[in-house]
């Protein structure tokens, strides 16, 4: 790894003096520039595309394994983590499971830490978490469920925590939350060395058969936002040693004369459902929430792409606008960039779209496709 990185750097340095008018014959290698809050990672194929959505440009790519679900940026270290599973002969032969770190500046792999357990090969940003800037947590299903904790300061896997019935790793403080099949949110606190100190569970607030929450969650700052398949929105926070769940509110309220922010009376939307690979996103700073919506189907259509994106004002919990996809286009993922004035990012069937979040107006298309949209910051 290191050797390779040096080679890349060597090429870059030797080309610094290339003349602007006539190009060197061999070409040279660029570096990736300085990421901003408007850079995201898009996972498409076996590649993570690092995209500046403000500029509308792909700035670089990271080569992932076929079993890598997502990336996990560690911006203060200038690194991006992912995990990969590699068979000696692509699909058979000896297996190596590793946590890989990429140097952002050179977009090159710079380190690997062997993982003791086969991680889940699921296309999901909740599968790998950065906990307190110090640990990376990885969810496993073998089919027993557990979380591997890797110390990314000392570069060693410190252990595996059994988490029966609970999935994903949503970091908060020196620990992480997980939604569980019994209708609760579990929180596990880690020690300085990454071992389990304690675990707590919220009261059961959903019924997995009647209306489970998505296993995908988004951060609220104080905790995590969970949304049920029927469109009930909850926030899970810590309170002393316990996990607290806010009262749920619905994305599809009954028609009761309520007017939305534009003064228009709500139409009843019973036939619309939330769904998609990343079905919702939330910005605490901007007070906005966006959801991917499709019409019809049962609860099990929760991964189905949408024909609209709905925007909610989080002060009033009312819907501000409905953004309709054009023609046959569908949308499978939404993301809001950080900050007070976020950009709304949509992964559509024809590529990435950047919209103004407050108006919904489209700013640009970016020629990159994939599934997961992750903010770098």
């Amino acid at each position: 790894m290191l050797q390779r990185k040096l080679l890349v750097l060597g090429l870059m340095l030797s080309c610094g003096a290339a003349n602007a008018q006539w190009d060197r014959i061999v070409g040279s290698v660029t570096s990736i520039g300085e990421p901003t809050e408007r850079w995201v990672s898009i996972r498409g194929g076996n590649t993570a595309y690092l995209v500046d959505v403000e500029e509308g440009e792909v700035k670089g790519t990271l080569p992932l394994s076929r079993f890598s679900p997502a990336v996990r940026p560690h911006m203060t270290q200038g690194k991006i983590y992912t995990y990969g599973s590699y068979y000696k002969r692509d699909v058979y032969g000896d297996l190596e499971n590793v946590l890989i770190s990429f140097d952002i500046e050179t977009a090159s792999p710079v380190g690997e830490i062997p993982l003791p357990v086969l991680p889940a090969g699921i296309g999901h940003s909740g599968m790998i978490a950065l906990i307190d800037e110090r640990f990376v947590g990885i969810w496993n299903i073998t089919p027993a469920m557990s979380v591997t904790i890797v110390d990314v300061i000392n570069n060693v896997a410190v252990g595996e925590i059994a988490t029966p019935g609970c999935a994903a790793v949503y970091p908060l403080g020196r620990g992480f939350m997980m939604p569980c099949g019994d209708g609760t949110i579990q929180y596990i606190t880690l020690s300085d060395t990454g071992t389990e100190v304690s675990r707590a569970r919220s009261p059961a607030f959903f019924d997995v058969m009647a209306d489970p929450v998505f296993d995908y969650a988004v951060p609220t700052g104080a905790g995590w936002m969970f949304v049920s398949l029927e469109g009930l929105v909850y926030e899970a926070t810590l309170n002393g040693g316990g996990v607290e769940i806010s009262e749920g509110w619905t994305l599809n309220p009954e028609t009761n004369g309520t007017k939305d922010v534009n003064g228009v009376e709500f139409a009843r939307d019973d036939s619309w459902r939330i769904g998609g690979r990343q079905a919702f996103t939330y910005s605490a700073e901007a007070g906005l929430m966006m959801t991917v919506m499709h019409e019809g189907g049962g609860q099990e259509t929760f991964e189905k792409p949408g024909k609209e994106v709905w925007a909610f004002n989080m002060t009033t919990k009312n819907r501000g606008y409905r953004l309709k996809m054009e023609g046959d286009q569908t949308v499978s993922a939404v993301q809001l960039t950080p900050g007070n004035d976020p950009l709304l990012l949509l992964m559509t069937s024809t590529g990435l779209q950047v919209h103004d979040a407050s108006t919904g107006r489209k700013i640009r298309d970016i020629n990159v496709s994939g599934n997961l949209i992750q903010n770098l910051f």
Partner: protein
Amino acid sequence: MSDREQLIQQLLKDLDARTTGAIRFLAGHTSRRSFLGKLGVFMAGMGAFPVLPVLREANAQNVTPRQQVNGVADIVEMGDPQQCEYWRYCGMSGTLCTCCGGSNTQCPAGSQTATVAWVGTCHNPADGRDYLISYNDCCGKSSCGSCGCSRSEGDKPVYFPSKSNSILWCFGSTSHAYHCTLALVIGHGDSNSMR
């Protein structure tokens, strides 16, 4: 956008869908209660794992011969097992092994049967009865892309794995590279006699 660009973008989307989430669906023709009742027999020793129908080889061998279940000696079946509409596939999501050199009971040569599977209940229109179907993944080869089939009913989030379509069910195989999925008839869906 050129044709080629469209092709490439399609490729990327497909790759993602095929490799980072083996899509599995569950037959929804059963309520939770009846489902649990029917699967209880498989779940001995599963501990805190909720409702995950782990069918290990060892357990399987303790099950009484299946032709004696309810005394049924044969199943009347109609339809094309290479079509997604085939009755056994109500809970299928993935690639049909029948299009890849296998059958609904045998993995294609050179692949490996996972020792853990999802079980659903499908209605056989030819005899009007419901049957328990075990969807076992065959693994260890590159994906056989010939006959994709997704019939989504009762899909749930991954913390409820027995009903999650995002999990790669290659447990027990030496490789978790997904190849295709079987659809085994393992009993009557309307019977409690599988013990």
